[in-house]
């Protein structure tokens, strides 16, 4: 709880500041914070709040079917809009059901405020009905959390929660609300206007970079012979301006650029300097450029293990610049030459200004040599596959989905597994905020609720969840949410009847012993869709893929499209665990099993 200072300060108190009932104060604060949609599920501890929701119509409530779905939906909403997502759940099981979603948002730095009901203050600690130590349970999976014990602090805490969620490295914030606090009469406090500084006593993340560090970085860039930009979700989180500045800088420098799974869309896939995604399932050219570069410019990525592979052999010959808003990301996994703490947009702005003024630019001849090398690598055509025979190749299904929908600038969410990686490889993103996937936590069951959140924010857009048949069953209940709220999300299931990614690892690493990875007893997805009141489609003939996709996007209702694909297909390229970027396996012809030895087997 936020101390005495808050009551003492109570800035902005106006004549119409109450008294109001706590639940009303909560909604006033949400409204002042610009909340238009709350994803939630009612229960005893939050009934006073639901009662107030009932009496107003400015904030829309989306009733989910499981609280985990509410959090993922809020994540989808936040990621596609840049706003803070908002969740409302009851105490006990309602709160514990949010834990996966909160952890997901924490790892992917997604701004959320999750309001949880709590038993009345006097019962806390008594093992009361539906009591859980929510602040205790969520402490390690939130950026910050609060237990509100005084109705007069409620508004201020909510304002602060939003400030904390969106400032610095964004993340989820939990506000735990005992029922008696929501029912007590108290005063409203307006959010301090204009000056954000007043929204938390002391939390002031550094956003402006150190000028000397930027100058250093620009000097290294000007001297580079084989540079590469490696960008991540930080650019997306920083906002559209950061993406625009990134595009300008990439263009001006003429350097190649790759991105993490989280950063797709910041630089357009159609851009000439785009190398594709990097990392475990990244492209040959991106990973070899990382391995062979002499200057690596990391903007808003965090040297995650999915990206670096074996740290010992990671980009061995390069100087490294790392821009991150979170100082703890710098020198955590990879020791860099220049660490720049700051918001991506602010840093890019200063880098650009210095670059434009910089008298010395990299020698264009040297850069051309680097580009020729890259062209060689590109020539391997590492994403090549062949659509032959009677089975639909999963890559083909996704590529066709891309081709047939790109004009509509769809929003894509995914579940987790092979289909997710194929989506990242074969769907091409030209804009930020159009790609929502669970990167850090890898949460199966993310995609459908996330798509619902996206569709709430973009009612007229095409929103597609590229799914696996195993993942989709983890939050399938949310179809009902989509139907209730008229959200015409499309679930495009790449159905290989296996937990494909698990099967792939078992094939490559565990002697083909497919332990528990077969999706036995699958439902009939077409009938399942119909049972929920959605449309159901199925396709298993490659020749009918296009028609089916067209049919799917023409339906103005939620649709499940069950795409029956080749069960044996593996996701390549792949850097086996414990290996370096230049030890990538390009296709099944190479023996990954032999490639992974010793310690690599123990890695995930």
């Amino acid at each position, binding site marked *: 709880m936020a101390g005495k200072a808050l009551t003492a300060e109570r800035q902005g108190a106006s004549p119409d500041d109450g008294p109001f009932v706590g639940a009303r104060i909560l909604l006033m604060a949400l409204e002042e914070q610009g909340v238009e949609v709350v994803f939630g599920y009612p229960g005893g501890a939050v009934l006073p709040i639901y009662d107030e929701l009932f009496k107003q119509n400015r904030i829309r409530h989306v009733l989910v079917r499981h609280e985990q779905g509410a959090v993922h939906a809020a994540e989808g909403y936040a990621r596609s809009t840049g706003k803070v997502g908002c969740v409302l759940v009851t105490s006990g099981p309602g709160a514990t059901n949010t834990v996966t979603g909160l952890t997901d948002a924490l790892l992917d730095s997604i701004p959320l405020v999750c309001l949880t009901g709590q038993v009345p203050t006097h019962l806390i600690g008594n093992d009361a009905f539906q009591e859980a130590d929510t602040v205790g349970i969520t402490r390690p999976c939130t950026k910050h959390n609060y237990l509100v014990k005084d109705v007069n602090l409620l508004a201020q805490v909510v304002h602060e929660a939003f400030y904390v969620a969106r400032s*610095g490295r964004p993340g989820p914030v939990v506000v735990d609300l005992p029922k008696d606090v929501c029912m007590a009469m108290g005063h409203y406090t307006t959010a301090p206007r204009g000056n954000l500084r007043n929204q938390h006593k002391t939390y002031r993340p550094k956003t402006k970079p150190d000028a000397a560090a930027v100058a250093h970085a620009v000097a290294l860039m000007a001297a580079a012979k084989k540079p590469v930009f490696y960008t991540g979700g930080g650019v997306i989180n920083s906002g559209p301006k950061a993406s625009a500045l990134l595009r300008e800088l990439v263009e001006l420098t003429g350097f190649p650029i790759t991105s993490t799974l989280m950063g797709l869309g910041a630089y357009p896939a159609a851009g000439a300097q785009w190398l594709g995604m990097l990392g475990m399932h990244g492209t040959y050219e991106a990973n070899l450029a990382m391995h062979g570069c002499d200057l690596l410019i990391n903007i808003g990525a965090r040297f995650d293990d999915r990206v670096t592979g074996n740290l010992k052999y990671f980009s061995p010959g390069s100087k490294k610049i790392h821009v991150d808003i979170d*100082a703890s990301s710098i020198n955590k996994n990879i020791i860099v030459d220049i660490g720049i703490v700051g918001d991506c947009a602010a840093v890019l702005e200063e880098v650009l200004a210095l670059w434009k003024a910089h008298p010395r630019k990299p020698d264009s001849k040297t850069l051309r040599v680097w580009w020729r090398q890259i062209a060689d690598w590109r020539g391997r055509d590492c994403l090549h596959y062949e659509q032959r025979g009677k089975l639909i190749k999963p890559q083909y299904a996704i590529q066709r989905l891309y081709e047939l929908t790109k004009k509509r600038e769809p929003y894509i969410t995914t579940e987790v597994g092979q289909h997710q990686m194929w989506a990242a490889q074969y769907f091409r993103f030209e804009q930020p905020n159009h790609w929502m996937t669970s990167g850090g936590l890898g949460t199966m069951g993310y995609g459908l609720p996330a798509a619902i959140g996206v569709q709430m924010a973009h009612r007229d857009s095409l929103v597609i969840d590229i799914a696996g048949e195993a993942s989709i069953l983890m939050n399938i209940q949310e179809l009902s949410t989509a139907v209730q709220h008229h959200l015409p999300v499309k679930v495009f299931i790449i159905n290989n009847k296996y937990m494909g990614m698990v099967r792939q690892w078992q094939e490559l690493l565990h002697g083909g012993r497919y332990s528990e990875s077969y999706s036995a007893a699958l439902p009939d997805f077409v009938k399942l869709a119909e049972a929920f009141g959605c449309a159901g489609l199925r396709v298993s003939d490659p020749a009918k893929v296009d028609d089916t996709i067209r049919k799917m996007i023409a339906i103005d209702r939620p649709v499940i499209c069950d795409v029956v694909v080749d069960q044996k297909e593996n996701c390549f390229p792949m850097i086996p665990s414990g290996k370096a970027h230049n030890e990538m396996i390009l296709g099944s012809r190479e023996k990954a099993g032999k490639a992974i030895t010793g310690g690599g087997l123990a890695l995930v």
Partner: protein
Amino acid sequence: MSQPLHMSMAKPKTKSRAQAKMPRAARAAAQSSNLYEGMVPQARLKDKDTYRHIVSLLVDNEAGVLARVIGMIAGRGYNIESLTVSEVDRELHLSRINLATLGTHQIIEQLKAQLGRLVPVHVVRDLTDEGPSVARELALVKVAGVGDKRVEALRIGDIFRANVVDSGTKSFVFEVVGNTDKVDAFIDLMKPLGLVEVSRTGVAAIARGAAGIDKASAEK
């Protein structure tokens, strides 16, 4: 760090506006191989030896703040030798936490950065790194014995300027104050003399000189 390319190497005839606006400090940094402020030298980060550091934090004294700090430390597997916490400013609701920790420079830098991102943590100071400091802890040491051992224990207590805060015919409780090494040494000497048990406060530490830890808090 290699020598960065000097901006002045190719002298432009006219300065563009952006360059003219470039802060002098930035230009100076770009032209020298000096590190900028806050930058930890690579060699230091790559040093595999472990060191003992004392880190002091100023935190909001709010419910759960200690759990937050300890949970982060446990969750990320840092090594903590001692941790002390107490409110130091009743009006502003501020507490000070002192950590004694062991690790490589890289790990200690990581620990400090992780502490710094906790919302209620205002100030993180490495008292071992940032100039001279004083560290003290207090231990209550119970020693039981008779005869020569009892006399010897008292004599050593004297040498260490330990106070006897409880005494019976067969036992003493010493109160000894000093830095960790001194307290460790005293306890070691008491072992053969009938050491029964020890209760230690953990380290309280403060930087030498006139500046206070919270001077910088306004900037955070």
